């Protein structure tokens, strides 16, 4: 090695450091790149677009209903495209499952791997604040949630207009893009806190993957059990998917799936994010006080 050292030598860097407007961006970019290096993630990511293709086919068929009468006799109501169609796309269980699947592979190790390999001290030896680190990691989650919710949602809306050949649908429901973006933003914020919380609880990303699934679906099972015993609609508040569906229906102006005000679900999700934020803040320390 000595020869290598002497041969190459050490040269000073003659550039100047830059003040980035978003110092967390390299963390986000690297998190996304690392996710795409995992084969299982790539499969899950590809699968997460399956519902969008199914709903796209539904849009096409709805505009060409007369061509498909033989297959869909009496299905006019089903293929009557309203904002509910977009709500169903964004709040259906299969999409939630695929989001959780994508995030389990892409997000479980976001903090857990840094804790396992002691790399937090390398981050904080750089001119980064804790909020930059957390924003960088959360943006990885945000990227994947938005790409499987907001992007297909808006593309479906666009295709609806293209297939219809007019802007009538958009003029009838001008608030629909905002509902799509609003619900996607809600999912993004919730899942960013959810994934980072669980990822910061363990150094083992495999445990975190299991936790991500268990917590999400166990809350639904718990709701089913409690509802079976007590028959109270408000017990749906313990279920993460139920709260997401309730808030989704509210944002799209549709009939609420559970018989309690949607604001309760908003509050439950906000409280979950607040508690997650507090725990994450305690688990990830860039500065400690020496007494």
């Amino acid at each position, binding site marked *: 090695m000595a020869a290598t050292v002497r041969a190459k030598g050490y040269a000073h860097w003659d550039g100047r450091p830059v003040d980035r407007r978003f110092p967390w961006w390299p963390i986000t970019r690297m998190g996304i790149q690392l996710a795409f290096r*995992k084969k299982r993630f790539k499969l899950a990511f590809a699968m997460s677009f399956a519902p969008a293709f199914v709903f796209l086919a539904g849009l096409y068929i709805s505009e060409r209903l007369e061509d498909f009468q033989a297959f869909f006799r009496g299905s006019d109501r089903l293929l009557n495209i309203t904002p509910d169609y977009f709500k169903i796309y964004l709040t259906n269980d299969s999409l939630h499952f695929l989001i959780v699947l994508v995030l389990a592979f892409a997000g479980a190790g976001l903090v857990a791997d840094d804790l396992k*390999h*002691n790399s937090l001290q*390398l*981050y904080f030896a750089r001119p980064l604040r804790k909020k930059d680190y957390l924003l960088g990691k959360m943006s990885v989650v945000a990227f994947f949630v938005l790409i499987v919710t907001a992007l297909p949602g808006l593309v479906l809306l666009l295709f609806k207009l293209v297939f219809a050949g007019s802007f009538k649908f958009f003029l009838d429901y001008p608030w629909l893009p905002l509902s799509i973006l609003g619900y996607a933003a809600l999912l993004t914020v919730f899942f960013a806190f959810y994934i980072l919380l669980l990822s910061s609880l363990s150094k083992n990303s495999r445990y975190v993957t299991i936790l991500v699934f268990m917590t999400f679906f166990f809350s639904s099972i718990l709701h089913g059990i409690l509802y079976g015993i007590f028959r109270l609609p408000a017990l749906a508040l313990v279920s993460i998917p139920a709260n997401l569906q309730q808030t989704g229906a509210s944002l799209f102006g549709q009939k609420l799936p559970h018989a309690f005000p949607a604001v309760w679900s908003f509050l439950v999700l906000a409280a979950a994010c607040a508690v997650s934020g507090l725990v994450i803040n305690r688990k990830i320390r860039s500065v400690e006080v020496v007494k």
Partner: protein
Amino acid sequence: MTLSLGRGAVGLLGPNGAGKSTLLRILLGFLAPDKGEGKVLGHDIRRDQALIRRAVGYMPESDCFVAGMDAVTFTSYFGELSGMPRQEAMKRAHEVLFYVGLGESRYRLLDQYSAGMKQRLKLAQALVHDPKILFLDEPTSTLDPHGRTEVLELIRDISTSKDIQVLISSHILADIESICSSVVILNKGKVAAEGRMEDLRAIRYSLYELRVKGDGGPFRLDLEAMGCRVEETEDRIIKVYMPAEGDRMDIFRAASRTGVQLRYFVKSRTSLEDLFAGAVGVD
């Protein structure tokens, strides 16, 4: 503690729990002291942490890397986080990886790196943004003798020819002795000794090595009563650390008083180990 660190390579010594790593972490802003003040390159350690971290390269003691990365990606990533433009960080990553001897294995996944390679990688990430000061926390602790020699050669090269100040925390005295021009010895969170190695050796005490015939017990007690620190090695050589104001003839007088014969007497050059033992009060 009050401490001022000069240029070149400075060694930070002390027994476990003395506060070496804590001092490095305070200087980097990882730990916030509830009182006191400090400056690194003129930047306040409380207020100007971002400026300090931009100018400092830190090599932690523990193994640390990012899973799933190769060395080039890892090094350029941390260069970028230090404020380097992406392209330049990548170019620079190649250079420093060659410099630390990882040029041939720079595209291997870090999960497959040996302990020695990870140690060099930590040095590479600390150097990538061309810091003005390097903080090295136990840089040779997990290395075999050959790897240790190579890393020490790198650190010596950096500190002597590259105009980069180096602060090394280590418990391996020989490492500090071989590359540092000055040393700070910490004990229980306080500075036990500080200064240029040569000055510390000269002013604090004189070291004499002797062999005696007869009952050495009263002789040792007599020397200790005179303020000397006395140690006996495995080969029965007695080391006497005499305060600077002491007179070597006092050793002969003590021998005469306690009835022992001096069979061997030599004034020895104090090693860092002696200096450390003298300052910290441990063997």
